[in-house]
């Protein structure tokens, strides 16, 4: 595997680790299965790409994209809390609506950014090549996002949010406005996902209406792979775990792409990825069985 492939896996893995953090908040902490992400990821890409193509500053465009994701999450939460639509259903409704909304925002199915300035092209230091600089910049973004999230979850409001997912009835008895917590949590989660989408469009050369398909699957895979690699209930470790999970997952895909030496073909990519992820899931059980009696 070339350095390019490795750094490419790292780069895309870091972008999707933001998605994984978002899915961690909705799926794990709030126990809210949220398919909105299939719509808010391309929403972020759409808003950022469209604004940039109109000549706006890429940083402002990226921030706007993050804000748009927050609004999408708020709407999903509102459908669930105020209109009492079941969580999964509410998120599916938003996902479907966002398809049309994204098309409207972009005005066409594909908004290219190859010839436009991006946050990466602006911040690119002259002494580094772009395929090294981008992962480094993304690493900074992800670390900052992780630390902010860790801090937030350790605050009173963060605790109230976690309690809302863990035991909503008891939380209400402790004075937590669970409805507001869900709205806030969904907004935060989808803001992270939209940020990822905005950054993805800027590294991929453009936003495409189809870029969101399968985002929830990637996010969940990252969360699950991460949890099997780093099982822990401590917040600091949980956020670290899903980041690692996203990177390892993309690494597995890169591995699958490079497996033509075992005679595998392009069509086998999905199968190989599935096998590798299964191995990741089974690893903890195998460890446990081999070291039986040694205690957890």
């Amino acid at each position, binding site marked *: 595997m070339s350095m390019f492939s490795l750094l490419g896996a790292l780069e895309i893995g870091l972008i999707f680790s933001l998605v994984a953090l978002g899915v961690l908040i909705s799926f794990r902490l709030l126990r809210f299965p949220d398919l909105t992400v299939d719509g808010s990821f391309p929403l972020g890409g759409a808003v950022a790409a469209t604004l940039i193509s109109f000549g706006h500053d890429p940083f402002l465009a990226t921030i706007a994209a993050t804000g748009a994701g927050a609004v999408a999450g708020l709407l999903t939460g509102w459908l669930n809390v105020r209109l009492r639509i079941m969580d999964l259903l509410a998120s599916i409704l938003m996902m479907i609506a966002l398809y049309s909304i994204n098309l409207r925002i972009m005005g066409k199915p594909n908004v290219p950014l190859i010839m436009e300035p991006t946050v990466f092209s602006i911040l690119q230091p002259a002494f580094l090549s772009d395929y090294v600089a981008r992962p480094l910049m993304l690493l900074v973004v992800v670390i900052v996002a992780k630390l902010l999230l860790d801090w*937030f979850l*350790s*605050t*009173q*409001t*963060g*605790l*109230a949010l*976690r*309690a809302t997912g*863990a*035991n909503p*009835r*008891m*939380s*209400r*008895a*402790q*004075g*937590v*406005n*669970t409805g507001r917590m869900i709205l806030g949590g969904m907004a935060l989660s989808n803001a992270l996902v939209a940020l990822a989408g905005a950054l993805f469009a800027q590294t991929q050369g453009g936003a495409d209406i189809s870029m969101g398909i399968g985002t929830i699957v990637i996010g969940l895979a990252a969360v699950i792979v991460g949890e099997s690699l780093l099982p822990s*209930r401590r917040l600091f470790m949980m956020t670290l775990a899903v980041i690692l999970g996203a990177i390892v997952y993309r690494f597995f895909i890169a591995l699958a792409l490079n497996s033509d030496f075992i005679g595998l073909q392009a069509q086998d990519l999905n199968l190989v990825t599935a096998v590798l992820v299964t191995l990741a899931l089974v690893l903890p059980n195998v460890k446990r069985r081999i070291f039986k009696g040694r205690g957890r």
Partner: protein
Amino acid sequence: MLNAQDLHITFNAGTPIENRALQGMSLAIEEGQFVTVIGSNGAGKSTFLNAVSGDLPVDTGRIDIDGVDVTRQPVWTRAHQVARVFQDPMAGTCEDLTIEENMALAQARGTRRGLGRAVKAASREDFRARLATLGLGLENRLGDRIGLLSGGQRQAVSLLMAAIQPSRILLLDEHTAALDPRTADFVLKLTARIVAENRLTTMMVTHSMRQALDVGERTVMLHQGRVVLDVSGPERSAMDVPDLLQMFERVRGEKLSDDALLLG
């Protein structure tokens, strides 16, 4: 201090499974009083408790706490004044959170939750001190997930959580029903101590007539969504379980007039 007036709650109104859970339930509890509430299944005990806590909306009627009408307030707004221990130890605590996180959650009850640290170092010491009074060794396990504790231990922590913030009324919803007799006894003694120490106004729903008479200073019996018996003071101290049982059966057997109840 707590004044429930003529509460009516009907489930599935107008359908074949209509259930008139509360039919004109009225109860006034003074500051500092410890009231036990008893009644057969379906008498409306839990329904009444849930109405007071805000979990169940009432169809008609009014609930005042300290003269303030809280009837339309949602659970989380009322939580400022109403503390509660659930029957199911699992339902009353957040399994996935640690002991100190659960207590921190309770400590912030009634306050505006902001971006300050959830578990401050000073609070931790406070929690440790409170847990030490239980004598269960939990003060050394602050960082453990509360799901690892036994039912009795969780109920004990729940009681501490209920008392950690001053509240106007403490609601106990058959909180020893899911525990074995020895643990139930422990929790009950703990209840009495905590209520006395903090001078809490308390309403305890129970299935056990023994408990209803031994604990607190006033016993109220519900039947068909209404109060049918209200004893306190020397009359109550003189009563024993068979006496209460007699009354219980009489109420269930025939429809008594109010005078007969007071005299009987």
